[in-house]
């Protein structure tokens, strides 16, 4: 237990001193501010353009923005934020393979599963903090300018998206245990998500795929029911656990 805590502490120090924490913080804060800002500015831009449009014979009707527009931006932008997160943290294991820093800790009798656990935990912690930061900022602005109550199931939709992030982290950890290079890990994670979005087009399996969790926009508009997420949530949690467990088993036998 103590060794795990030491490892988590070390990972945190690395996040801080390597500047990764700052990058992630800035990106997620930026996205958090951008969502309401874009929602607020779009009508204004359209009005500004309306005059020139009118000259060419087009009429633009501008409706007042609501919190829903801002949340629409949130669900449009959060995938980008997750991609940035994966790009910044994708080499958390492989960096230590190529440099050989991990060998030294392991040959001191550090149990291998503790390395996996500490890195997985730090990823989950970072993702959770970043997600809450981004969500919180958007929420606060929305509350200030408009009214968040127009968005239905807001907390639930956010939870689903957060869980999708955890699922991706599960993939990241598993592929990091299996593969050696950071690029390969990123590629593998991307391939799985891409394959899911392709499969997503086949309507029948849609609701069981983890990628269904990213339908937050449909949820807050009331286009889909909360209940339809049960399968995707259960499956995502299960897959995340399986990925982490498999990562431990694979990593125990990995040649470093």
């Amino acid at each position, binding site marked *: 237990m*103590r*060794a795990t805590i*030491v490892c988590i502490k070390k990972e945190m*120090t690395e996040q801080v001193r390597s500047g990764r924490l700052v990058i992630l913080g800035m990106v997620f804060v930026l996205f958090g501010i951008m969502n309401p800002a874009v929602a607020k500015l779009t009508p204004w831009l359209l009005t500004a353009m309306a005059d020139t449009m009118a000259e060419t014979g087009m009429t633009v009707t501008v409706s007042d923005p609501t919190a829903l527009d801002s949340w629409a931006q949130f669900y449009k932008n959060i995938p980008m934020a997750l991609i940035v997160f994966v790009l910044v943290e994708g080499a958390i294991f492989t960096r230590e393979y190529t440099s*050989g*820093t991990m060998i030294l800790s392991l*040959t001191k009798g550090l149990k*291998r599963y503790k390395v996996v656990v500490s890195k997985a935990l730090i990823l989950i912690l970072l993702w959770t903090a970043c997600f809450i930061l981004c969500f919180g900022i958007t929420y606060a602005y929305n509350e200030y300018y408009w009214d968040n109550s127009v968005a239905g199931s807001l907390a639930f939709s956010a939870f689903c998206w957060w869980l999708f992030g955890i699922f991706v982290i599960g993939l990241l950890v598993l592929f990091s245990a299996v593969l050696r290079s950071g690029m390969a890990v990123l590629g593998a994670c991307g391939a799985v998500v891409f394959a899911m979005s392709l499969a997503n087009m086949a309507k029948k399996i849609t609701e069981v795929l983890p990628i269904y969790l990213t339908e937050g926009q449909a949820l807050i508009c009331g286009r889909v029911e909360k209940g339809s997420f049960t399968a995707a949530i259960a499956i995502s949690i299960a897959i995340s656990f399986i990925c982490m467990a498999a990562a431990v088993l694979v990593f125990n036998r990995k040649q*470093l």
Partner: protein
Amino acid sequence: MILHIDGLYKSFGDKEVLKGLCMDVPEKSVFGFIGKNGAGKTTTMKTVLGLIRPDKGEIRVNGEKVTYGNTATNRYIGYLPDVPEFYPFMTAREYLTFCGEVTGMEKKAMESRTDELLELVGLKDEKHRIKGFSRGMKQRLGIAQALFGRPKLLICDEPTSALDPVGRREVLDILSAVREQTTVVFSTHILSDVEKICTDVAFIENGVISISGKLSDIKKRYRNDKYILETETPEGICAVLKAFPSAKESGGNMLTFSEKDESVKEIMLFLVENDISIVKLEKAEPTLETLFLEVTGK
């Protein structure tokens, strides 16, 4: 025996690196593990640490069997890899503290051990992060981290190879200073390093150990009756070679001969009679170099 290796085999693809390697390292020795580049030194050491799965063979550390992956025997071992890399964002002190914490050492003991080791390797006043360390500094920090848990066996992979003479001297001094506390195994292809500090040696050649034992015994065993003769001119060497065909030319107006084949007196007489002026005629001390060449048959 602190380390016992029996019939170790390992291939990478169809390249056989170890072909039944057997080696015994006695306790409290400074053990030189000698071989050319690519001979399989790193492979052997990593197998001892459970980092490489052998195809066949058994390794025991302090009597306990080594298993691949999480091996409990690593608690007896301190390891310095050939190119040690540490977390660049830490300072030397922070890194050693991390090592202590990982091994579950008590805080008090850890701090005093950290101080002691930083002193030993001369990094006590180094406040910079490891990012800016030189090869030699990393190598010394590497020894400190390997020694941290007071291992019974210290394994160093080519600790001196990439260093300049000063750095090499420092590392050798540290290694011979710790021999009271632990058994040291280090691999190298630099024979003079071995001669300076080793008590025992093993030569790895073609995937097996070709000679091993106490350095003094080996030197005695191979203590040859070899002489070296150097003349002033190449003609002198030619003349001697012609008269004493068993002598071997060794380049640069020099030849070597063995007392078994030729009497030294006769050669001296020949030199005088033929008025060959010489630079030197001396008995050759067996160096590891000559042993090594003899072993590898070159």
